[in-house]
């Protein structure tokens, strides 16, 4: 857990504040649902269902959580509110736990890979470029040499936006300008990273809706082209999800994974009222770990995901 020393206490509070806004009500509701109860009854389950569903956890995952909770209660013989609360947290935590990814879990230990190539993907407006700007900052703080690739050559001024982040972080940004071939930007970025002995190369891509087949194929191509420079690149394919997104996140995860073998998730905009509950089901179904959470627009507002804290914050009250 050394990684969390990175963040000041203030940072943690920021996450808590964000999550708390609505999530305190989650605990309130559960507590209320449990007043005077000594066993789980239908009313409690109805309430729990409502609570989880209104946090975007989704019907399927909610039913799964409830099922698991019921099985646990039957086995452990639940007695009080506090205990049930712990069981619930535990079961939700387990869903976030199971993954097959074995990417580095912090900014300092890159498991001997150099350059460590990260490709960032997602639908429009989730915060890909901003997340990259913040990641570059964290990697630099961990003493890494970073190169950014301006692979969003489609959206107006996206290249300009990444360049500004490059200046803020004082790192190289490889760009071919607007309306150029993003695959060639990716190729040159990885090549440049190798040439200058950079530790990390992060490649931005244009936002695309996952049902646009042509654009998804383009992503596969961008990924393939990098492998001409470094065979096992990209090492990390980060799918950025907006915390306010509802059940469509499943479809996003499915299509982006099909096109690029996503192996890490970033959940952005968690400082708002959205609860990001959908990530529980996404992580569970696709066995992909949540690596980062975004909690603001500042350069510091990126945190490594900590399951315990995330689940705790859900139930903080």
């Amino acid at each position, binding site marked *: 857990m050394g990684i969390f020393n990175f963040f000041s206490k203030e940072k943690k509070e920021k996450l808590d504040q964000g999550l708390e806004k609505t999530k305190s009500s989650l605990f309130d509701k559960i507590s209320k649902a449990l007043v005077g109860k000594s066993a789980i009854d239908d009313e409690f389950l109805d309430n729990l269902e409502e609570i989880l569903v*209104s946090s975007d956890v989704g019907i399927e995952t909610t039913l799964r959580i409830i099922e698991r909770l019921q099985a646990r209660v039957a086995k452990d013989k639940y007695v009080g509110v506090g205990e049930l609360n712990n069981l619930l947290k535990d079961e939700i935590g387990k869903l976030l736990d199971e993954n097959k990814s074995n990417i580095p879990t912090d900014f300092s230990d890159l498991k001997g890979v150099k350059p460590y190539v990260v490709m960032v993907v997602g639908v429009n407006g989730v915060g890909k470029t901003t997340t990259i700007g913040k990641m570059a900052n964290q990697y630099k703080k961990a003493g890494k040499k970073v190169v950014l690739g301006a692979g969003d050559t489609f959206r107006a001024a996206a290249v300009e936006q990444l360049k500004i982040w490059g200046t803020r972080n004082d790192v190289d940004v490889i760009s071919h300008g607007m309306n150029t071939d993003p695959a060639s930007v990716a190729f040159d970025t990885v090549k440049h990273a190798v040439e200058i002995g950079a530790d990390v190369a992060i490649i931005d891509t244009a936002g695309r809706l996952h049902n646009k087949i042509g654009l998804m194929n383009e992503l596969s191509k961008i990924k393939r082209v990098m492998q001409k420079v470094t065979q096992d690149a990209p090492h990390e394919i980060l799918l950025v999800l907006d915390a306010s997104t509802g059940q469509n996140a499943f479809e996003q995860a499915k299509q982006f994974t099909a096109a690029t073998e996503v192996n890490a998730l970033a959940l952005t905009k968690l400082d708002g009222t959205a609860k990001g509950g959908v990530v529980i089901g996404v992580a569970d179904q696709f066995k992909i770990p949540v690596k980062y959470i975004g909690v603001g627009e500042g350069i510091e507002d990126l945190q490594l995901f900590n399951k315990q804290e995330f689940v705790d914050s859900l139930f903080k009250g």
Partner: protein
Amino acid sequence: MFENLSGKIEKAFKMLKGQGKITEINVAETMKEIRKALIDADVNYKIAKTFTDTVKEKALGQNVLTSVSPSQLMVKIVNDELTELLGGKTEDINLTGNPTVILMAGLQGSGKTTHSAKLANFLKKKGRSVMLAACDVYRPAAIEQLKVLGAQLDVPVFFEMENKNPVSIAQNALKAAKEANAKVLIVDTAGRLSIDEEMMAEIGNIKKALNPQEILFVVDAMTGQDAVNTAKAFNDVLDFTGVILTKLDGDTRGGAALSIKSIVNKPIKFMGMGEKMEALDTFHPDRMAQRILGMGDIVSLVERAQEVFDEQEAEKIQKKLLKDQFTFEDFYTQIQQIKKMGNLKDLMGMIPGVGKAVKDLDISDDAFKGIEAIINSMTPGERKTPDIINGSRRKRIASGSGTDIQQVNQLLKQFEDMRKMMKSIGKMQGAGRSMRGMPFGR
């Protein structure tokens, strides 16, 4: 768009089939399915519940009066309720005021800048002189983005690089719009979270300074349960006049649309259907409800076609077709016009009954690429008189276009068939004139 939802509701209706009338028992299961489908579609939990309760009440009340099948009746009730929930009638944009001021507001990444530009394009096409104002001083390159889009559309963009105060930029923009005699000023603002008090106060101040005719809340159609909270918070501060629902070209079921209207009681005025500047449609609740129920949206399709197709050009081509003077050049022009209508899959999705069929189909916008390449590889002479295209010319065209001879042959054959067909239609029309006096002639 809403295919998934209609699929589920359809399934729920199937459970009703074969039953004589709607009873408390047979309706309960259907309602549960509809509610689940709505929640899966990101409709707010509570709103979904209210909705199904209303539908159930109406269903139980009505069954005595009618003799249609329960499932037909349910379709009607659900459709009516959905239309109602989505906002009843179409609401036009308010263009009073001189200039009309339109303020854009919403969360980060909802599509404000893109839709400011799309809206500018939409109004410009209606003959208004438009100015854009770049008031997002926070996100890196946001001003640059609006400038690029403005230049693409040939719409002036007001910005002040050095000014970090969005309220004063907005005021200056209004002055500039008046001086330039612009009829509409569209003010782009930074994305903000509804719980960010400082930022919400700021946009409140922009509103006070501008006194806008329209305040449009821009919201991502993929938004989940939080849509109600955000919409309410923005409405509390801004009392907005309408909603733009964006990214509807994705496969989101778009339940946010159903939630927002009922929570703030403000009309959804536009929907964003893609990244192209033309991809903005006015919102039609009735059509959207029909679409949700899998009835297609043929009216939107026709409207889009009308807007894109140049009438004179179309008439010219029609004449050519009938006179058998249709060339590959005309064919190429037609392809360009079809492409202007937008994403092919979207277009097909609007045709009743087709929506579900194309849901999983891979139709890319590149469908015309091969044909375009072949036509591009012809000489002007060949395009005008395709008859001269012999074997060696075909070989040259195939290698020039990166296709093969079979593909070239196929296209030539299709083109010839089309010409023959048109020729015979032309003859029939010619003959039609002399048929006026006959019983079935017109």
